[in-house]
């Protein structure tokens, strides 16, 4: 659906660049990219440089950049266009495990104001720098994510973890993912990435389990999991509202 949007705006001088964040690299992203068959740059970010460079803490998020290469909106939640907000078609089996049913229930409570976001995007495409949604350079910096030394160290631990995972050192990776989670508690991406590397079951849903295996819950290596964390933080806070 972002591709349709890209095609709609492309004649007005807009390009879309999609970036898949996954420690498994191209192998993890491939089925989704091949299914979408993009006609725009579609990149693989194996070690989450998007987090370091732009402050991405959740997905989906987007950054708007003008013709001169200036960021006019820093990384923020990028909901799907309205009407097309339906759950992805994953050919869900009838005997879906209880956990996945619960996850879908929580996910349905996530607030996504696609209407406001996409009206703002259309306004920027048309009016550029004169759009009230295009921020000044000072505001862009101010509205980018907070980063203190602890968070920066958390990013370093995440990068180390991602490389260790790619090198087959899973146990060491877990140790550094845990540090990243402790130091950058607001990052859903850091958590979801690590949880997704503990798949339960087989097939495309295995990485979406994101929590303890019911057959061996004691071996879950993380403090939280998707269901526990979204209940604690509130599904309504999962995706921040669009603020002009």
């Amino acid at each position, binding site marked *: 659906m972002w591709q349709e949007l890209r095609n709609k705006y492309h004649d007005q*001088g*807009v*390009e*879309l*660049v*999609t*970036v*898949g*964040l*996954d420690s498994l690299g191209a192998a993890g*992203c491939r089925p989704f990219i*091949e299914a979408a068959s993009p006609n725009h*740059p*579609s*990149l*693989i970010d194996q070690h989450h440089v*998007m987090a*370091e*460079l*732009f*402050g*991405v803490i959740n*997905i*989906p*998020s*987007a*950054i708007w*950049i*003008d*013709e*001169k*290469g*200036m*960021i*006019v909106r*820093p*990384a923020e939640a990028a909901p799907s266009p309205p009407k097309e907000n339906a759950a992805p078609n994953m050919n869900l089996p009838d005997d879906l495990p209880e956990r996945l049913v619960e996850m879908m229930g929580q996910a349905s409570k996530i607030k996504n104001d696609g209407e406001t976001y996409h009206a703002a*995007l259309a306004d920027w495409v048309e009016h550029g720098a004169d759009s009230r949604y295009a921020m000044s*350079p000072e505001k*862009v*910096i101010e509205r*980018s994510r907070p*980063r203190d*030394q602890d*968070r*920066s*160290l*958390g*990013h*370093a*631990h995440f*990068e*180390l973890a991602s490389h*260790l995972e790619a090198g087959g*050192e899973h146990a*060491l990776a877990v140790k550094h993912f845990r540090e990243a989670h402790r130091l950058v508690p607001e990052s859903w991406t850091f958590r*979801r990435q690590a*949880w*997704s590397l503990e798949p339960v079951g087989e097939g495309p849903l295995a*990485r979406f389990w994101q929590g303890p295996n019911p057959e061996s819950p004691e071996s879950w290596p993380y403090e939280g999991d998707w269901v526990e964390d979204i209940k604690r933080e509130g599904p309504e806070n999962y995706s921040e509202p669009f603020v002009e």
Partner: protein
Amino acid sequence: MLLDSLNISKQAFAAGTGWEIKPEGACKGDVCIPLNGQSGDTVDVRAVAEVMQMPIAEEPSAGKYALGPESIGGRALVSAKAPELTLPDLDGNPFSLSSLIGQKVIVYAWAPY
């Protein structure tokens, strides 16, 4: 950036962190941070990291270090100039964001999990 040494070339430092080491200091976008004693071809990562407030995480058993991003400004961005982003596509071909100068760009982050 991932490191296996704490003394690396200026070129590697720029590619990994987005900060170019120039005579006036470490520069990114329209911001330059003065540095002392980084006149050769290599970067003393610990010394520069201290000035830039880039913490280093270590995994001694794997002989690996990771240098965190700068935290000097207290924000993820120190400049509104888009940092260079070069990443491979599915076939491994590198693509640079800067090649799209002249167009409006939406950079959309997603994940398969």
